């Protein structure tokens, strides 16, 4: 046999031998034990990395579930099914978890809220408006209408309606709570999906001013609070529902002049599936 061939084989074989040996030693010294449950749970999670659970991402959440720092029901996006699957991996019982949905506690859209004399010109984002001038509306507590919540939603579950207020498409909403964090006015709150009665206002102005700035504000008259047996408490000219003691049958809804306290409107925004290949009416218009 040719000598070069032999030397070549010996050289590559020797090099491979040395490197493989080195790596084998390094593997022994540096091996990290990783609980296989972490990978299993990570598979079960939605993988949106939305941060709704309070951890850096789905993988981080899985690590914390396995180490016992996070609850198996901690993923708001995956919901009950996901919690059950995770509980099965961890060998515990998930229990029942109720889905949380964001509720927009302001009804002062473009037609209800009174506008300022001067118009806002600038970046159309709520955070910018909140810093610069407080937006177009006279109310300093209500929705700015810039759509930061819509932008923040990783699941396209929010839209701005014609009235300049955000709406939640419940079918698509996973309850991750990113919209709550995005709102500089804190008018979005997470509530259990079956909760129906809310005070749709955050205005803490005195009654006269509150009435001036918006036709659907809570003026702080306190009539709902007086009849409610502690179910509604007044806080700085604003009715706040104390859900622990709340009984909707005691609330005189018709006495509320502005309708600030009331039932949630049935959501009309639904997902319409467009068959593949057919163009939408909008596309037709554009064509």
């Amino acid at each position, binding site marked *: 046999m040719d000598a*070069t061939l032999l*030397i*070549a084989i010996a*050289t*590559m074989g020797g*090099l*491979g031998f040395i*490197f*493989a040996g*080195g*790596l084998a030693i*390094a*593997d022994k010294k*540096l*091996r*990290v034990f990783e609980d296989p449950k972490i990978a299993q749970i990570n598979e079960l999670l939605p993988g949106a990395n939305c941060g709704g659970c309070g951890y*850096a991402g789905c*993988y981080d959440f899985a690590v914390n579930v396995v180490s016992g720092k996070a609850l198996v029901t901690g993923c708001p996006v995956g919901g009950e099914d996901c919690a059950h699957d995770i509980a099965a991996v961890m060998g515990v019982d998930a229990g029942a978890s109720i889905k949380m949905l964001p509720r927009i506690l302001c009804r002062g859209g473009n037609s209800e809220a009174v506008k300022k004399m001067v118009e806002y010109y600038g*970046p159309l984002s709520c955070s910018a408006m909140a810093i610069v001038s407080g937006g177009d509306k006279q109310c300093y507590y209500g929705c700015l209408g810039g759509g930061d919540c819509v932008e923040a939603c990783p699941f396209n579950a929010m839209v701005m309606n014609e009235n300049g207020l955000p709406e939640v498409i419940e079918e698509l909403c996973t309850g991750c709570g990113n919209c709550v964090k995005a709102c500089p006015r804190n008018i979005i709150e997470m509530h259990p999906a079956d909760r129906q009665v809310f005070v749709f206002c955050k205005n803490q102005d005195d009654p006269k001013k509150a009435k001036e700035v918006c036709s659907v504000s809570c003026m702080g008259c306190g009539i709902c609070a007086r009849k409610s047996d502690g179910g509604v408490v007044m806080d700085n000219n604003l009715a706040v529902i104390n859900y622990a003691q709340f009984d909707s049958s005691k609330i005189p809804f018709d006495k509320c002049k502005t309708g600030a306290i009331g039932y949630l409107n049935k959501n009309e925004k639904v997902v319409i599936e467009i068959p593949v290949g057919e163009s939408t009416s909008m596309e037709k218009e554009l064509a």
Partner: protein
Amino acid sequence: MELILIFFSAAIVNNFVLAYFLGICPFIGVSGKITSAFSMGMATTFVMTITAIVTWLIYHLLLVPFQLEFLQYVSFILVIASLVQFVEMFVKKVSQPLYRALGIFLPLITTNCAILGLALFMVLKDYTFIQGVVYGVGAGAGFTLAITVMAGIREELDLADVPKPFKGVPITLIVAGLLALAFMGFSGLISI
């Protein structure tokens, strides 16, 4: 003096990323955040330095004496692959978050053209051992500089009002082009 020139030549004038356009994938892929970009730069610098050392030894002590220059690519790739495997194990042991931040780009250093390019350039330029090591460190420093500067710009870009069609990858590529343009200003300063 010559060593200093080699270092700056590899790091700035003939920057691997911005002048030779080698190793673009981690340059775009891991330049989202300064911390992870810098760590990527450090990992690449480490691999480049050790690659320079080991490939020089293999080439001059093994391949040349036995007239086995045709084994260049195979043996260099073997060196680089083993080193990257080692770095991956090390990073995984030391810092889990960093390991996940680097993601697929860490094992991809294996076939990073910047590193194989370094080994081949070194042979081509016929450097001595010391010169080769300095060349490796310089190339790594240049890569770290490029990726960190890029990450810094991209962090600021997140706050800028970028026109919608340019958001994300397009503006990143434009920035990379502008950076390369800026680095072209150094060309010809050192001819080594």
